[in-house]
């Protein structure tokens, strides 16, 4: 029998203060997947409540958990991750640990692989499930709408139900890997000149007062080229676009062109990705986004409407001030008539760019080794072990890596160690290097300097000294490639 994959056991949200009295416990349950019997749900919730109480015993009042702390509980067969994103609201995800039926001395037994479930990955997946809700629906607290307490809770429950029933279908637990832990984005590499042209174009766009555009993201072939949105929100928005909006949009484009519309025509005419394609106004269709600032203005909410305009290979995401006239007919016309043509020019320039870039790359020695490179400050990464060009934005939602699961597991281990150091603020400033060798002669080299991390995977029987030299050479080569374009 093969090893099973990680699977979702349950996912639930509760607030203990809603059902403090006996007989009213059911009110605590705000959302529960799968829909099992009431008593079972309450038993699971009760268990989490006990864990929270128990672990709280060992920490002083003032160091109690904050929204960033994810608690974990492991049993032989399951793992639970839970956290409190808003006061008294707890979100819990339980996973079934992969297992394999084996035989020893003619007796069957089951071996569980808890080590394959990485805390660092699933903690982030849990947190993302909340941040995604907040991005589209605002906070739980804000969704307590109604006259009576019961009405408020019912409204929140409805919202949670609508959102999470769909959302849970999109979480890809089985292919979750280091990218879910680092939550960085891969940017499209282009030449400086074109890059600054785009920056300039977007700055002008934002300065046009009557359009009320506040933030923009510029994409080429659904890959990010430039963004003025903060990295965490960008990650969520990107996920939403690549997993939901773009696939739907391109499918409908396909249908249209099959139904007789000439393909060239649709390519030349820009289209709004959001809303109904034929609509003149986006006012009612554009998704509302709630962006929460961190740091100094922690917790402040800014609400925008999101419009995406696509022409040729480029897409422009515009986050527009949310008011009564937002994204009306006038806005749409303005974009079509004066913005669209400029985007067309940029699109052609990037295509040329990429052709040239490809040539330069081909002239270089081909780097056959696999690596991942990311920047902790601007949340960008570059990986070359995914089969599809853009690791995050693939339309069937499956990541296809060329790495064996054992190497991927090691990358996750190394990343977990690194991010622990990061959180403890130790050794951030210094340059560090780690080289490990596995039993099947894989070498992984990790370098960290100036907030950049670099993991290189080599497979050969070699010595530490040789590996160190080779990685140094490859690093400078790769950095040259990655930085070829849009870095200063």
């Amino acid at each position: 029998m093969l090893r099973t994959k990680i699977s979702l056991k349950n996912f639930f949200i509760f607030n203990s203060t809603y059902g403090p009295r006996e007989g009213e416990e059911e009110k605590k349950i705000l959302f529960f997947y799968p829909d099992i019997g009431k008593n079972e749900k309450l038993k699971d919730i009760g268990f989490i409540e006990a864990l929270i109480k128990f672990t709280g015993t060992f920490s002083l009042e003032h160091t109690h958990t904050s929204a960033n702390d994810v608690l974990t509980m492991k049993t032989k067969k399951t793992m639970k991750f839970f956290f409190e994103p808003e006061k008294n609201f707890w979100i819990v995800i339980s996973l079934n640990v992969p297992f394999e039926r084996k035989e020893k001395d003619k007796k069957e037994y089951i071996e569980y692989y808890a080590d394959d479930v990485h805390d660092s990955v699933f903690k982030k997946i849990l947190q993302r499930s909340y941040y995604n809700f907040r991005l589209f629906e605002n906070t739980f607290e804000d969704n307590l709408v109604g006259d009576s307490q019961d009405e408020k809770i019912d409204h929140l429950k409805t919202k949670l139900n609508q959102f999470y029933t769909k959302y849970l279908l999109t979480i890809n637990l089985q292919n979750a890997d280091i990218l879910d832990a680092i939550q960085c984005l891969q940017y499209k590499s282009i030449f400086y000149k074109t890059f600054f042209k785009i920056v300039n174009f977007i700055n002008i766009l934002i300065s046009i007062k009557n359009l009320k555009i506040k933030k923009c993201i510029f994409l080429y072939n659904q890959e990010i080229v430039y963004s003025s949105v903060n990295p965490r929100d960008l990650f969520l928005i990107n996920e939403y676009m690549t997993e939901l909006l773009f696939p739907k949009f391109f499918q409908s484009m396909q249908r249209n062109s099959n139904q007789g519309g000439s393909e060239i025509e649709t390519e030349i005419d820009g289209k709004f990705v959001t809303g109904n394609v034929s609509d003149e106004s986006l006012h009612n269709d554009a998704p509302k986004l709630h962006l929460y600032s961190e740091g100094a203005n922690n917790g402040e909410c800014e609400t925008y409407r999101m419009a995406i305009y696509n022409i040729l290979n480029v897409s422009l995401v515009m986050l527009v001030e949310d008011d009564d006239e937002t994204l009306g007919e006038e806005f749409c016309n303005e974009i079509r008539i004066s913005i669209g043509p400029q985007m067309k020019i940029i699109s052609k320039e990037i295509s040329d760019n990429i052709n040239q870039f490809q040539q330069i790359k081909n002239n270089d020695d081909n780097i056959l080794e696999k690596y991942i490179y990311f920047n902790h400050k601007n949340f960008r990464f570059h990986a070359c072990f995914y089969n599809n060009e853009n690791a995050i934005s693939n339309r069937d939602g499956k990541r296809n890596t060329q790495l064996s699961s054992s190497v991927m597991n090691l990358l996750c281990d190394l990343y977990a160690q690194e991010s622990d150091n990061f959180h403890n603020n130790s050794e951030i400033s210094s340059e560090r290097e780690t080289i490990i060798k596995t039993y099947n002669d894989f070498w992984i080299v990790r370098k960290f300097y100036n907030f950049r991390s670099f993991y290189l995977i080599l497979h050969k029987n070699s010595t530490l000294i040789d590996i160190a030299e080779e990685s140094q050479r490859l690093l400078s080569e790769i950095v040259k490639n990655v930085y070829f374009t849009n870095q200063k």
Partner: protein
Amino acid sequence: MSDISNFSDDDDSRQEDCALVDALSELNFEENNIENIRKRKNSDNQEQSETNSDPCSSNSLNFVDEEYDYLHDSEWINQKCQVFILSTAGKPIYTLHGDEDKLNPLFGLLQALVSVVSVSSNGNPDEDDDCIRSITAKNTKFVFLIKNPLILVGVNKSKRSEQQILNQLMDVYNQIIFIVTLKHMKNVYEKRNNYDLRKLVAGSERWIDHLLKDEKQTRISNNSFVSLMHSVRILPMEATTRDNITKTIQTNCSKIKNLVFAVLIANNKLITLVRMKNYCMHTDDLRLIFNVVECSESFKTAENWLPLCLPKFDPNGALYCHISYLSDDCEACLLLMTVDQESFSVLSNAKKNITEKLRRSNYMEAINEGIKDKGINLKTIGVPDIRHFLYKNKKNTQLLCSEITTPYNTLEQFERIEAMYYDLHNRIHRVSRPLKLIYEMHEHEIQLAWVTANYELYATFEPLVEKKSIIIAQVNKLLKYIKKEEDKIFMTGTHIF
């Protein structure tokens, strides 16, 4: 027996330790023999607890406020390492810090957590039982070891891994078996589910305390790596001297029937071990002996006769153990272990003869020289960039360490480097994906961990050694030195009566 096997600490390094010989029956542990051992033991323990005014024992705490609330005591809460032991029925047995009687609600909660998880998969006969393993909240890890009829819980705020905390709990569990024997413990719980095991452990809690507590004054010591590496350290001496000491023990003991082990230790290191043919002493058992000897001052003043159980040797039976120090001027402790409860006077005589012979041949001086040793002095080997190292000889599970010098001879720095070794060891030995080598450059040092078929090496270097070729050259030099001095720094070969 669902999955405790999974829980056990059978990682690589332990598996290769000398295995228990199957034919335990050969030893003829007679039922009533063991029964007698127990009777004697209980009375011994009672005597001990009467004479011993251990501040932690529950009787002596009566004058303290019964209502004392540890759960609001910041000192208690902030303890880096806590261990709780309870019975599966929820009865408190032991807490490292505080008084277990006053922590009743906490023990109740622990028992509830364990039982909720284990019954949650009930109802489906095909499924095997689930059991709780660990909880992590911020920087605190809670690790559970369920060994029916006991539950052990470790609460740890250091950076140790779950597996390492689990190993620590295993040591504690073995220390309990060492005192009570597994069979006896199971018997009493079979008869009375809510039995209070403290009655049997009374007086020996300090052995458990000593296993867990970091005594500040002796903290900066290579001793703390012994349990990490599942190994023992050897008192260095010339091979011929060690051979002669061994021979002295052999000649004086060869005629004594039923003698299973003779162990000579000093300063937490092994000098020699002689055993009955076909029987091995497991490293884990040896570590328990070291622990007990180190924290029992009374052994220094008189001959002792105690029944002790070596859990890896036979968890269900006890050996009678004659324990005494060689003399006032030589702090080496000799343990003679037998299955024959009547042989106290025989062993006492043998010990006298051994002491006399060793004194006459000046071997006491050699032992005293060895006691002064602080570990390998790196300056004399010519490896200037190595600051400290740990070397485990995998074949005989013996550990060699270098002297702890600057910058690691302050408590703060020692604990930092100790944590780094723990982290390194955990990563290289992860059960699901072990590694052969880790090289790591940190801010304040460079570390190298290397596991081969014959040895494991963990070395710490000066931080500014840029070239890896220098590091490799010095490692090779060190390995060459160890090979050359092997006879002196390790105990090679086995000795039987």
